[in-house]
């Protein structure tokens, strides 16, 4: 279980308990948090689950696969701390994770 803070582009915050094993994306979608679209349902095929990982947490969320990096390379408003949230698996180690959503996923 991990407590994850999802921050919308407009600043609205949502603090959610997400079960271990789910992705950070699933934590958002299952709790109706706006800002993560996840069109492909987590298949790393659409890049609409784009989030910015808080600097303090970047090292703890693992390294993106080559596929994720390729997808991110062409997403909108990509920053060094950008990740596809469907590729970040929830574990106890990321309890307290903070992610921010972009203004739009499309």
């Amino acid at each position: 279980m991990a407590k994850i803070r999802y921050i919308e582009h407009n600043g609205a915050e949502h603090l959610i308990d997400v079960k271990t094993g789910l992705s950070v994306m699933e934590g958002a979608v299952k709790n109706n948090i706006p800002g993560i679209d996840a069109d492909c349902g987590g298949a790393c095929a659409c890049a609409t689950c784009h989030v910015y990982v808080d600097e303090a947490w970047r090292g703890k969320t693992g390294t993106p696969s080559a596929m994720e990096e390729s997808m991110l390379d062409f997403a909108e408003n990509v920053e060094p701390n950008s990740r596809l949230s469907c590729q970040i698996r929830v574990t106890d180690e990321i309890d307290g994770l903070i992610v921010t959503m972009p203004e739009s996923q499309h």
Partner: protein
Amino acid sequence: MAQAGGSAGVVIVGAGHAGGTAAALLRQYGYAGPVTLIGEEPIAPYQRPPLSKAWLKGETDAEALMLKPEDFYAGAGIDLVLDAPVTAIDRAQRRVGLADGRAFAYDNLVLATGARARALDIPGADLGGVLTLRSAADAQVLKSALGPGKRLAVIGGGYIGLEVAASARALETAAVVIEREPRILARVACEVLSTFFTDYHRARGVAFEVAADVQAFEGKAGCVTDVRLGDGRLIACDAVLVGVGAPPNVELAAAAGLECVGGIVVDEQARTADPTIFAIGDVTHRPLPLYGRMFRLESVANALEQARQAASAIVGRPVPAHEVTWNWSDQYDLKYQFAGLPFEVDAVVVRGEPAGAKFAVFHLKGDLVQAVEAVNAGAEFMAGRQLIAQRRPISPARLADTAVSMKEVAA
């Protein structure tokens, strides 16, 4: 039809990916009137793509497939009416009638009735073990037919057939894919991809019969034992998965006098000729602005796009810019993504090496990318989508040269 019991507002017929998304978007866009979401399946909206993949392989559960959690609908004031087939639309009275006698009035109607798995009308088609895959219930039956030592015959070398064959192999089930055309994926992909996937599947134990007709299913004690091919040969099996396409469920619309060309005809706002009636998802025949023609798209991306169009039009919000059609099909450890459609193509560029399982095929009209098919090539897929959308000319020579990055090609 009975007097309408429910109040008006928006009625959505079909609680699949398109219908479920339309309902959620109406609320997200601030629609305050009644929203009624009616589905014939007894399950709230869920994702179908995993049914042929992670679900069969036991890698996911029913809860993970749901588009929204159970309590979402009540919380959003969406009246979810399940296990309730709709049998008629009364356009004059603006209400829909259900098989159980109930009726719902509408100000706006959204038809999201999707498609159904095509069955083969041949001898033996009703034998036990002859299966199709569309719904969660179908997937449950198919899953129990797979397992170590079992033998699956797959009729149809399209995405569904190939995905199920890959899942069967993961479950140590023997698989034979029987395809009517001379190559698999004939309807939807180019020859390079057909060859690549045939080789990849073969290397993982899948057998193929192409240019093969299926004459009949043979059985014993009511269960299928063989597929009889057109040339008389028998393919022994314990179960058959028929994956030969999914005709759109247009019957309701057609009976109500709405124009159907294959699918229900709609415009760029997903609206039919009746201004109060929209149609979205697999059931529609829609304009493709980038290609100047009408088409029926069968993808999650299309369902979502049209749900956005209809919901925007209903609340009076600007309809979003049209998107390039795209889709994906994961088989084994491959990530296969494709975008656009190969209309009016005069050249094909292969970038990368199929033998290395990392490549993309670009379909060009002059120096414009019309479509891209990418295997384990996310950059090519993403850049390809942008090039198609923006109609940005590229240099075919640079596109073919992997020493030039996709960023540079697309610059």
